[in-house]
């Protein structure tokens, strides 16, 4: 258990900057996820912390120690690779014990620790199997066991769930959370799956093109994305975006898109006054658009839009509905009872308290 601190850490491969001046602090015992599209530098960042890639510039601290030039084995870290990297010629028990044996831990201690981690990860009975005789989920757990058995101060996980099927992934997600609660190890987790990031971590660091786009709790990031990229990346289904002009008529603030006009609540207006008359981007999540008559939202003047259903995607208890009005399309999430079918007319009620406004040029958040 320790902290990891990155100060202006950069990585250049050849002439290509992969990570640019990254500042990030992972607290003691914290579960932080690096998330971003592929090629954003998240795995490279993890590999720099693991000591598998050299830091081009900047400082990397593990605990209070400057770790830029410390060899991997002396960093107090353990890592689980996306591919698991199990040693194919060794049994489960030999794989797990490898790190301990290298560190010349006495035999009885090795046996005790291996047995402890086997039961922690429900691997009892698989001690003598080779990796090729294990299922995907079991291999993943062996890889995790091999990393945890050396008591790392920081556990680095590189997309450990991406090779599992959807059902197993959700199960292992809960398992990881349980283990973290139990061991309180500092965990740095890399994934491209924003749902995984949201559900697992205490804090999320969203990366884009080698830079940190936003760091915060999952709720922070969901509620107040700092820019268009984060807003579009986090949340499923994706946030709706509209080009709109902020106007003020007869004391009422509105935002006018190509197809409809919506009233801006007072707090939002207070924050975006400066952009009056300008075109901004209005963002609103599908789950914040309701259907007329829903008890979840009060219909006030200027927050309804009449539209026609184009696509319906049933998800069981909910349906994702894509609607259209004058060539402007947006999606909303409705309860299954709504019984939507294409060509149906629907009146959407926007919960403008939950809208987001972004500057069109910079993509930065304006309000609320």
């Amino acid at each position, binding site marked *: 258990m320790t902290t990891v601190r990155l100060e202006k850490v950069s990585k250049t491969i050849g002439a290509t900057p992969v990570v640019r001046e990254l500042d990030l602090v992972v607290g003691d015992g914290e579960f932080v996820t690096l998330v971003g599209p592929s090629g954003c530098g998240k795995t490279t960042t993890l590999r720099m912390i*693991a*000591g*598998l890639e050299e830091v081009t510039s900047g400082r990397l601290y593990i605990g209070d120690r400057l770790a830029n030039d410390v060899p*991997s*084995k002396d960093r107090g*870290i*353990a*890592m689980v*690779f996306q*591919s*698991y*990297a*199990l*040693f*194919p*010629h060794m049994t489960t028990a030999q794989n797990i014990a*490898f*790190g301990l044996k*290298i*560190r010349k831990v006495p035999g009885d201690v090795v046996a005790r620790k291996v047995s402890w981690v086997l039961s922690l990860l429900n691997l009892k009975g698989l001690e003598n199997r*080779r*990796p*090729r*005789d*294990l299922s*995907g989920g079991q*291999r993943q757990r062996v890889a995790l066991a*091999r990393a945890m058995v*050396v008591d790392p101060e920081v556990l680095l996980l590189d997309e450990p769930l991406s*090779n599992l099927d959807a059902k197993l992934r959700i199960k292992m997600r809960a398992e990881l959370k349980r283990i973290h609660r139990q061991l309180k190890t500092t965990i740095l987790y890399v994934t491209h799956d924003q749902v995984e990031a949201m559900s697992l971590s205490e804090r999320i660091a969203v990366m884009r093109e080698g830079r940190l786009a936003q760091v915060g709790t999952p709720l922070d990031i969901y509620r107040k994305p700092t820019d268009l990229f984060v807003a579009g990346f986090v949340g499923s289904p994706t946030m709706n975006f509209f080009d709109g002009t902020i106007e003020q008529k007869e004391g009422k603030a509105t935002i006018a898109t190509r197809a409809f006009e919506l009233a801006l609540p007072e707090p939002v207006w207070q924050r975006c006054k400066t952009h009056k008359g300008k075109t901004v981007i209005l963002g609103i999540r599908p789950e914040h658009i309701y259907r007329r008559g829903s008890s979840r939202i009060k219909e006030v003047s200027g927050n309804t839009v009449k539209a026609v259903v184009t696509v319906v995607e049933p998800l069981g208890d909910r349906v994702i509905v894509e609607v259209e009005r004058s060539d402007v399309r947006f999606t909303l999430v409705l309860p299954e009872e709504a019984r939507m079918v294409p060509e149906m007319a629907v009146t959407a009620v926007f919960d403008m308290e939950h809208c987001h406004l972004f500057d069109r040029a910079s993509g930065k958040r304006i309000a609320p």
Partner: protein
Amino acid sequence: MTLRIRVRAGRILWFSGLVVMVLIVIAPVFVMFKYAISDRASVVTGGMPIPLWPFHPTLEQFRGLAGTEQFLAAAVTSLQAALLSVTLSLAIGTPAAYALSRYRFPGVMVLATALISIRLFPDVVAVVPVVEIFTRLALVNRVLGVALAHSLLAAPYVIFIAMGVFDTIPIELEEQARILGAGPVRSFVRIVLPVALPGLAAAAIYVFLLSWDEFIFSYFLLAFGEQSTLPVILQKILSWTPQHNLLAAISVVLSVPVVAFTFLVQRYMQTGAMAGAVK
């Protein structure tokens, strides 16, 4: 009904095909074995057809060979040269292949191709300079010299085979070993080598075969010594046109160690050594 007949006919055809193929492979081995245990009357028939099975099977030829000191000495020399060649060429080739596979420096493929293209020269062309150099180094008329020459011939192939093997071993295995505290040597010995073993075993079989069969280099390098390898002895015996059954017996003796070595090494060659390592 017709379908069943057709299926059965297909099976019979397929099976007969297999039988023919097996016969083609087995026939020469059978003829060699039959002659080797033939008595003189079954070979020298005076115009009568040679029987399919000898009249009086005998191990006489083998007993004769076992009693010939020169032949036994050559067999020992051949075995020494082959095992030494396997050891030397793997000791040279494996680290070289590892370096070529792991460190992708500029020109790495040029170097690898240059290595293999050495073998494009006919052996007869290479033998003169090799003998010349080995004479100066006092390596002629010695098993070590023969083994070195055979390693020279085998090394490019060993490097190529081993490079292919190392290329299939994901770098993550070594990175993981490094994080867990293993140094480069330990990671190579404990992780890379065991995983590479099946491929390296194939290379070992190849080198053994190459050395065991090799004639030109052995002939010239041992020309003025007392030692000789089996192919060289065989050439000497052939030059006085011996009986078929003696030749066949020598052939059997020549084949046995190759088969034995292959069986011995083959248990390391189970497929799917990498299975379960990644994904």
